[in-house]
């Protein structure tokens, strides 16, 4: 499938003006105080000593992260009585007991006895929206990725639940046999070449200094770099003007490799997330992050 801008599945970037506005803010900030420069210019120097010209913009975007709007909306949705049964998600169990959110996200994906499955944040939210609120699974899945024409409750709820664990460390445990199975499957999928281009995740994410166009790709076999990845999803994506979840990231990676569409909350997506999050254990959660 080619990106179809009209269908707004891959909406056209609309962030240019935003960046311009931020640049203007940056200029004003520089003029106003040298302290701002000390911070911003310090960040502009990447670890290898090369100047990263985007660092100033990145920092400004992180300070005024539009993802906060999704957290706000997600919080409202979480507590609102919704769906055919008119109940809130306050009784949703993310692994630490009903309604316990703080510290739940860093342990996901994990095995849930009630469903008999290993579930990540999004698939668990899906379970709760179906089981507690009475929504039809197909409807939630269909609307899980927002477009410019419709908002996604899933993206807002995932932002909110993940953000409740900000500052805590990713800490996925592989205690249950099914969790170990999922990890193994994820590790296999990450390295398995397939599809018309004979690509695996590791083809792009296994070496230093790889890029798609101008976008630098993290080397996910490096602990530091994978931690930087998992600490910031769900993330506000400037090019898409919305928060995207890890499910969407993996869906998009699959599309980029020209593989068949990755089903939302599928075992394959959860296996990859289990592998990635476990590999990124220790990462300090800062959700929603900010991504290109």
């Amino acid at each position, binding site marked *: 499938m080619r990106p179809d801008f*009209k269908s707004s599945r891959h909406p056209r970037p609309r*962030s240019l*003006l*935003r960046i311009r506005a931020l640049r203007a803010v940056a200029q004003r900030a520089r003029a*106003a105080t040298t302290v701002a420069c000390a911070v911003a210019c310090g960040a502009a120097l990447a670890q290898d000593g090369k100047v990263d010209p985007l660092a100033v913009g990145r920092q400004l975007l992180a300070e005024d992260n*539009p993802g906060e*709007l999704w957290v*706000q909306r997600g919080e409202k949705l979480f507590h609102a009585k919704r769906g055919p049964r008119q109940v809130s998600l306050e009784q949703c169990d993310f692994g630490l007991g009903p309604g316990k959110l703080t510290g739940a996200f860093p342990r996901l994906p994990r095995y849930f006895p009630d469903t008999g499955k290993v579930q990540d944040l999004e698939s668990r939210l899906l379970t709760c929206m179906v089981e507690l609120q009475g929504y039809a699974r197909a409807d939630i899945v269909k609307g899980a990725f927002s477009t*410019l024409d419709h908002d996604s409750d899933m993206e807002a709820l995932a932002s909110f639940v993940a953000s409740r664990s900000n500052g805590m460390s990713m800490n996925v445990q592989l205690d249950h046999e099914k969790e170990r199975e999922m990890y193994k499957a994820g590790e296999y999928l990450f390295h398995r070449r397939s599809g018309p281009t004979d690509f695996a995740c590791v083809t792009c994410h296994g070496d230093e200094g790889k890029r798609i166009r101008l976008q630098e790709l993290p080397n996910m076999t490096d602990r530091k770099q994978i931690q930087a990845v998992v600490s910031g999803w769900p993330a506000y994506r400037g090019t898409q*003007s919305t928060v995207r979840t890890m499910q969407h990231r993996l869906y998009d990676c699959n599309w980029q490799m020209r593989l068949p569409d990755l089903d939302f909350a599928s075992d394959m997506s959860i296996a990859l997330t289990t592998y990635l999050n476990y590999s990124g254990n220790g990462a300090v959660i800062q959700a929603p992050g900010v991504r290109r």
Partner: protein
Amino acid sequence: MAEPMKIRATVKGDVADIRVLIAHPMETGQRRDAKGELVPQHFIQSIVVTYNGKTVYTGQWSQAVSRNPVFAVRVRGAKAGDKVSVTWVDNKGDRRTDEKTVDAA
């Protein structure tokens, strides 16, 4: 009804740094939806920032401003505890006002 704004206001010395993040679709009128129909214009037309009840910024915005815009103003002679109020009105007549108390840095 419009989602609330996210306002940050901190004072450093006697200058308050006010940053406002607004949830708004800011449709240009040029985009087509999945059915190929033009999406009508929907954008913030005017925005007013008041500081302790005194207007310190008024803006006439257009469809050229981005979706979910962020903007910043600075006010001199500020101190912690001051009141900031931001109001926007869009071309459909929707409006929203949010308030924030200035924090110490």
